[in-house]
Structures are given as structure tokens and as C-alpha cells.
């Protein structure tokens, strides 16, 4: 090829207006001219310092305001709401030995959370095993979609806890019933997102498959699955978020080991500091689950990379 063709690629502006193309000319300038380069890097440093200040100071201010209101409630309105320092002491004592075992009914808070997570994972995995294939079928066949859609529409808005009696009746035990509730919780977002993902596959990909004469199995493996994966992960992410909320409520009803029942038990003991510690811990576990799923999601988000 001649030089005119090679020169092209420098001219071609990126189709997607992503930020990565912007700094390029700036870097070229900095290679030749020293002062602007130094100015730029110090500006960058200042920008970083400013950003991290904002990332710490602003949320910090919120926590301080909430702490102030909390203290106000404790002092003026309801002295049963524990003070900040009492709660802090409780948190330290609870978290200093999270995995103690004093008999089957007295386990550390770490165990409580792990038991709850175990139920969530069991129900969530079962829902994935059932929901993702069902979603695929609904996405691929208009008839299956038509057959299932009304049932799903009726059941989806129902609080998953409404299914707990059915679970207790079916399984005659608390633990499988809680898992059953998580299964019901998780399955709808998975079905709906998977089906939407299959339906959102651009006709272009299927045209490519047709020109290449890909077989049914090859289309599934090489086009359908990878094209739908981001949607499936979105469904899983939504499911997991709701499942973690629902397990706390489900365990309050079923009892046994688990953070939900532990929280309820502390209410029965009128140990309010422990309840607040549990609330914060549940939130932190939720964040961890959520960021794990976002990490997975960004790994398979082809459009942004």
C-alpha cells in the first residue's frame, strides 16, 4: 500500500466521542514544549488532590450532619436510641470476635452474615439455573413469550415474602423456605432481562451469521450467548440486590441463624446498639455484593471498551 493509505488512520476521527482521543494532541504538545507539560502535570496533581478532597470531605460532612441529628434524637426525643459512643462500643465488641461459636444458638455476627449469604447464594443460583434458560426461550420464541408473559406480570410485583407460607407448607422447614423465597425474588429480573437481551440482538449480527452460514449451535455459542451476556449480568445484579434485602426480612420470620433473625433477636433483647450495628453491616455487605456485580458487568460491557 502506498503512503497515502497509511496516513489515513491518523486522520480518522474516532467514531465514538470517547475521552481517550482528546488528550492525544495535548500529549504531543507536551513532548515538544517543556513548560506547558510541567504546568499540565501540576494541574493534574492539583485536580487529583481536589477530587480526593471532595470524595472525602463531602461524604464526611453528611456523616457529621447525620451524627448530629442522631445525637439530637438521643438527647431530646428518644433516649432509647443509643448514643453514638454506645453504638461505637457495641460495634467494637461485636466485631472484635465475629466468628465465635458458643453453642448452636450463639454464633458471632460473621457467622450470621455468612449463613444469610449462603441462603442468598443458594436461592440466587437456583434462580439462575431456571431463569436464564426460561428467559432465553422467551426471547427466542414469540409464542413462549406470549404464553408466559401474563403469569410473570401477575407474579412479579408480589412481595417475595408472600411466598414464605407456601414455602413452609412445601418444605416443612425454615431454611429451604427462606431459600425458596430468595429463588422467587431472583428469578423475575433474570427472566425479564435475559429475554430482553435476546430480543435486543441486532439483526446485523444475524445477517453476519447468515452470510457465514453458521449452524444453529454455532449461532447460539458464537452470537446469542455473548450478545446476551451483558443483559443476563444486569438481571443477576438486580436479582442479587433485591435478594439481599429480602433475606433480612425472610429470616426475621423464619428464625434460625442469619443476620435477619439476629437483628430481630436483638430487638427482643432490646439491644438497640446491636440493631444499628447490624443495619450498617447489612449495608456494607450490600455494597460489596453490588460492586462485585458491577465489576463483572463492566468486564462484559463491550460497548464502552
Amino acid at each position, binding site marked *: *500500500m*502506498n503512503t*497515502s*493509505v*497509511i*496516513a*489515513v*488512520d491518523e*486522520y*480518522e*476521527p*474516532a*467514531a*465514538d466521542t470517547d475521552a481517550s482521543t482528546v488528550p492525544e494532541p495535548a500529549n504531543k504538545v507536551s513532548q515538544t514544549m517543556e513548560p506547558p507539560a510541567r504546568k499540565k502535570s501540576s494541574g493534574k496533581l492539583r485536580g487529583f488532590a481536589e477530587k480526593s478532597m471532595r470524595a472525602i470531605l463531602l461524604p464526611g460532612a453528611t456523616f457529621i450532619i447525620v451524627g448530629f441529628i442522631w445525637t439530637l434524637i438521643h438527647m431530646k426525643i428518644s433516649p432509647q436510641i443509643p448514643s453514638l459512643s454506645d453504638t461505637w462500643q457495641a460495634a467494637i465488641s461485636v466485631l472484635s470476635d465475629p466468628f465465635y461459636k458458643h453453642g448452636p444458638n450463639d454464633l458471632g455476627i460473621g457467622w450470621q452474615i455468612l449463613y444469610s449469604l449462603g441462603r442468598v447464594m443458594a436461592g440466587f443460583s437456583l434462580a439462575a439455573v431456571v431463569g436464564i434458560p426460561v428467559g432465553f426461550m422467551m426471547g427466542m420464541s414469540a409464542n413462549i413469550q406470549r404464553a408466559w408473559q401474563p403469569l410473570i406480570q401477575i407474579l412479579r410485583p408480589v412481595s417475595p415474602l408472600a411466598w414464605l407460607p407456601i414455602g413452609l407448607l412445601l418444605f416443612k422447614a425454615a431454611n429451604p423456605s427462606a431459600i425458596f423465597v430468595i429463588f422467587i425474588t431472583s428469578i423475575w429480573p433474570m427472566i425479564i432481562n435475559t429475554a430482553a437481551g435476546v430480543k435486543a440482538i*441486532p439483526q*446485523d*449480527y444475524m*445477517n*453476519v451469521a*447468515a*452470510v*457465514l*452460514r*453458521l449452524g444453529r449451535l*454455532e449461532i447460539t455459542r*458464537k*452470537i446469542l450467548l*455473548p*450478545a446476551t*451476556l451483558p443483559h443476563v449480568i444486569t438481571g443477576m445484579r438486580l436479582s442479587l440486590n433485591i435478594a439481599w434485602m429480602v433475606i433480612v426480612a425472610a429470616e426475621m420470620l423464619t428464625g434460625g441463624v442469619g443476620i435477619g433473625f439476629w437483628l430481630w433477636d436483638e430487638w427482643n433483647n432490646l439491644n438497640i446498639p446491636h440493631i444499628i450495628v447490624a443495619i450498617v453491616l447489612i449495608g456494607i455487605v450490600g455494597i460489596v455484593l453490588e460492586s462485585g456485580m458491577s465489576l463483572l458487568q463492566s468486564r*462484559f460491557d*463491550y*460497548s*464502552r*471498551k
Partner: protein
Amino acid sequence: MDHYLKLENLGMTFKTQKGNFCALKQVNLSISKGEFISIIGHSGCGKSTVLNIVSGLLKTSEGYVLLENREVNAPGPDRAVVFQNHSLLPWLTVYENVRLAVDKVFGSGKSRSERDEWTRHNLELVNMLHSLDKRPGEISGGMKQRVGIARALSMEPKVLLMDEPFGALDALTRAHLQDSVMEIQATLGNTVLMITHDVDEAVLLSDRIVMMTNGPAATIGEVLDVDLPRPRERLALANDPHYHRLRGAVLEFLYRKQTKKEAA
């Protein structure tokens, strides 16, 4: 003239809620091996429908398509398509997008290392060897279209079908890609059927320009022979009176004989 690719009485009727809509009728065209044919017409005239029928992505309602005297009515790699919006698979790298086609077409004919080499060779033709491991989302629109062309070429098609391949690109990128396509066609001697709505592009690249009348019931209005010598040089042609006569003939057809009733 040999009839390498022949379109016989093609007609297309779509069933709509308001009844049947006749998009195309009586399209007859004969293309020789190694010819570069452009189909030009106003938007909505059914030029893409013609291409989709030749590619087999659309089933014709009337008539048939013959390739080397054999009827074709299903898609296949012997009529590789360069899609307008590149249609690369976003989860595969540049290399993997082309390799998918190579593996499918030459899976039994070539060894693993031959297929690797053939994939690289075709990406080299379009000057994309530098971005083998990038995903489509990481490269520019022009580069994506280059990969799309490499993928189509890698199937060693009997006919290369291009559906407004440069329509979505800016003018500068488009010009460079047109030059690339001219060079590749000069080297490989592909038979090409290209849909375009760009008069300059049609005159620059084609051996013949097929001009279509407006729909409904669109058909071929005129066929213009572009007898400019090759290789063609964009800058030299800018001052060539014959080039301007040819260009004028296409414009005359599009804007006097086939004026769009309402602005599209």
C-alpha cells in the same frame, strides 16, 4: 459479455397492512467477472433491496439471481457483504472477527497456521495489522469499516456486495477508504456490486453505474458506462472534462428525470 452474475426479472412485493406494496419490478442486470458495478438512486428506491436479494438475506418475490449459471437464493460466503454499519461482533477483537469468517469458510480447506496467515493477510490488505487485538469499540468508524471489508474479502467471495459501505463516514475518511477499495480491487480483480447514493463515489469507483427509478415499483432506469481509464486518480479527475460529463449524466438522471416528489 459473459454473465457471471445475472439478475433476471427480479421483483419484490412486501405485504403490508394496507395491502401489497410493490417495491421492485423487472430488475434485469448482467455483470461480468471482475466488474465494479454501482447501484445509485434516491433513498427508498429499493437499491438496498436489490443487494439484499443478491446476498440472499431477502427472498425475491419474482425472478431469480444466477451466479455462474447457478441459482442462489440463500445467503452464503460466496456473496460476502460489507454492511453499512460494519456489523462487527463487539465482543471479538479485530483479528477474531476476521478469523471467525476464515475458520467458517476455510475450516476444512486450510490448516490452522494457514488460516492464521490468511486472516493476517486480509487485515494487511486494509492496513489494519496494527490493531489486531483491539475490540471494535476501541477503533474509529473508518477502521471498523476496514475490518468489515477485510472480513468480506477473507471469504474469497465470487461477488463482493457493499451496502453503502462509506455512508456513515466523514468525507476525508470516505475518500481514503475509496482509494483503498480501488487499490484492492485492482490487485484482486473482485467482482463488486456496491449500493451508494454518492454520485462522485459511483463515478470514481465503477465500471458501470446502474441508476434506479423512484419507487414504488422501482426498476433500472439507465445504465451508464464509466469508461475512464484505470488506475484513477481523484485529483487528476477533478479537472477531467469527461469525468464531469459522466458525473453530469448521473446528476441529470437523479435530479431531473427522477426528482423526488417530496424532500426525503
